[in-house]
């Protein structure tokens, strides 16, 4: 088997792998990054082409089972209420993320102390705040500083994107009710920023930015990392983290697209393959599972939506998409509501005309065709928008990934099999929040509302499956991502999260990765074998 050596081997070239690789390279270490996907150039995305809505049904679909590219691994989600979503490529799932950029709230780090459920994090919001600031600069976050939902106002380096007619309409409704809202913060530059173009509000963020605007690691991190000498190998599917006779990680075995196996050796191995890919690798390698928690406590953020329909033209296909507004009105626990924790709301444009046709909403196969289709498009298109609701998912050890015994990827490696059921707490939470969102729509003047109680294709946020903590019996990694059982093996993605918050997680994934990797750099001499 052909072999190479570098100080550090990283698996995954998404946001977390990008942060880790760049900091290590800046510190002068040699780094090899193994990524199963490839590079995607901006002009490959279809946002500016008329077939944009067509190609999102397969080519740019967020579910790897639908996309079915050879670099994707399939996922058996038959025993899950939610489909996990992701993208394999340089930039990871961020290539198709909405770029909603939100910090977790202070209370998110203290869930056990405040609400008596789940676990506290081993550090606080205040500890993480400098790392948030650091990654927000790199990710060109546009927004309005001073959000009263945060103690420090959640400052943003770039001014906000326009709110547009949709944002103004939603804001009026919220002000009428006296409810919290704030202009959305997004990892989308409102001005040219380093290597990024200014956003042109094309609104196709979720299927890739064809304008080179959205902040994705292939633009924000990898160019500098490559200049500093990082070796980024694409089309490299890792099947195993190898160990030496002392049980220390010695590298990773990977297969190229021609089926040839290689061994990337390193003194340190860092897994950044996301909340599904990382536990899959740990399970395939038989590592780090003394606590029995590898793959368990999977959290995916059940998502509900309320669409409001208005009798005026709101141009609701205009971007970003992206969040136009956010609300944290019902974010914190109020036990009188019958559940603990809460949800963030994001106000989103409704998109192109295809979203209003049959087949998207269930019902009979032909429902919504014929005259009904024309009426529906006339009534809703451009005249509706959504309050999306991200419910905090509490950890449950029965919600887990295991290795499938019947399904495998294109290299013959076992696919992940997902066991995930939404909790009663979450059901009650989403019911409460959708009812409030209907009120918000009505206050804004909606003539009709449509509630989607749970969207199955909503597993955008993958967390919890290699949980961090100080107790080796109750966690997989320490507070800096170091695997308890294997001192030179690290996890630096959302798998380490003790709880999920009700926020989109990438800001926190990148901030925690920065915190972990800078600590690794500081303490690297302690990692040498005794």
């Amino acid at each position: 088997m052909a072999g190479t050596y570098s100080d550090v081997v990283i698996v995954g070239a998404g946001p977390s792998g990008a942060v880790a690789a760049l900091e290590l390279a800046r510190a002068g270490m040699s780094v090899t990054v193994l990524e199963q996907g490839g590079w995607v150039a901006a002009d490959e995305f279809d946002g500016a082409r008329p077939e944009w809505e067509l190609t999102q049904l397969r080519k740019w679909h967020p579910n790897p089972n639908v996309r079915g590219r050879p670099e994707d691994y399939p996922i058996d989600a038959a025993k899950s209420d939610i489909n996990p979503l992701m993208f394999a490529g340089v930039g990871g799932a961020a290539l198709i993320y909405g770029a909603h950029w939100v910090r977790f709230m202070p209370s998110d780090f203290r869930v056990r102390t405040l609400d008596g459920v789940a676990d506290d994090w081993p550090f606080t919001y205040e500890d993480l705040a400098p790392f948030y600031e650091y990654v927000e600069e790199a990710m060109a976050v546009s927004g309005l500083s001073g959000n009263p939902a945060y103690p420090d106002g959640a400052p943003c380096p770039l001014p906000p994107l326009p709110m547009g007619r949709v944002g103004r309409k939603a804001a009026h409704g919220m002000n009428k009710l006296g409810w919290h809202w704030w202009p959305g913060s997004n990892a989308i530059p409102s001005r040219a920023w380093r290597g990024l173009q200014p956003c042109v509000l094309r609104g196709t963020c979720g299927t890739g930015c064809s304008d080179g605007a959205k902040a994705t690691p292939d633009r924000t991190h990898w160019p500098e990392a490559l200049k500093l000498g990082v070796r980024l190998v694409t089309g490299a599917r890792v099947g195993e983290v190898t160990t030496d006779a002392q049980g220390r990680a010695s590298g990773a075995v990977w297969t190229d697209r021609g089926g040839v196996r290689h061994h990337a050796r390193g003194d340190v191995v860092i897994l950044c393959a996301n909340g599904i890919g990382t536990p899959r690798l740990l399970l395939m390698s038989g590592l780090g599972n003394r606590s029995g928690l590898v793959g368990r406590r999977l959290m995916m953020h059940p998502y509900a939506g309320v669409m409001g329909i208005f009798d005026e033209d709101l141009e609701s296909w205009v971007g970003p998409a992206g969040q136009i507004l956010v609300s944290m009105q019902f974010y914190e626990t109020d036990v009188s509501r019958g559940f603990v924790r809460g949800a963030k709301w994001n106000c989103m444009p409704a998109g192109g005309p295809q979203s209003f046709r049959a087949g998207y909403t269930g019902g009979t196969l032909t429902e919504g065709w014929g005259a009904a289709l024309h009426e529906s498009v006339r009534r809703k298109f451009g005249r509706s928008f959504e309050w999306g609701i991200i419910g905090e998912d509490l950890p449950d050890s029965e919600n887990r990934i295991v290795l499938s015994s019947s399904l495998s990827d294109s290299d013959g490696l076992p696919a992940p099999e997902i066991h995930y059921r939404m909790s009663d707490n979450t059901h009650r939470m989403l019911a409460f929040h959708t009812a409030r969102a209907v009120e918000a729509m009505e206050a804004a003047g909606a003539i009709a509302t449509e509630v989607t109680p749970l969207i199955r294709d909503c597993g955008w946020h993958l967390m919890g499956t290699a949980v961090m903590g100080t107790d080796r019996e109750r966690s997989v990694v320490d507070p800096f991502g170091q695997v308890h059982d294997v001192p030179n093996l690290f996890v630096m993605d959302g798998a380490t999260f003790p709880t999920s918050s009700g926020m989109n997680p990438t800001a926190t994934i990148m901030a925690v990765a920065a915190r972990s990797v800078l600590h690794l750099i500081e303490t690297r001499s302690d990692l040498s074998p005794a």
Partner: protein
Amino acid sequence: MTLTQTERARLSEFARIMLPGGSGMAGADDLRLWNDPVDRVLAVEPALIEPMRRILATLGCVETLNDIETVARTDPEGFKALATVLANAYFMHEKVRAEIGYPGQEARDSSLGLSEADIALIDKVRSAFVTWRRSC
């Protein structure tokens, strides 16, 4: 791989019923949707041809949406492909886009930022809220 004349004729039966036109929007007939507009979709997504063909090969006349529902139930995947082809052919058509006032996902200036009216709305929030809760 293109559709045969027989297949196009069969597709036109479905298209006329599913997209009859109305509410100020053209119908499939006006656009001859089963010709160039459908070819444009299939050129981008050729994988839709085979499942759609299965539906087009079914026998029996379709005159109403109920007839189509019956056919669709025999092969939901095939029908999904046919529906996807027709809907995309329809909404990618310039005439339809003009009728519904949709310029497509066009580029606009994002540097305009917030207007004075927006700031006035935000000031209300600024003065009213402290929703975060201390973490200790």
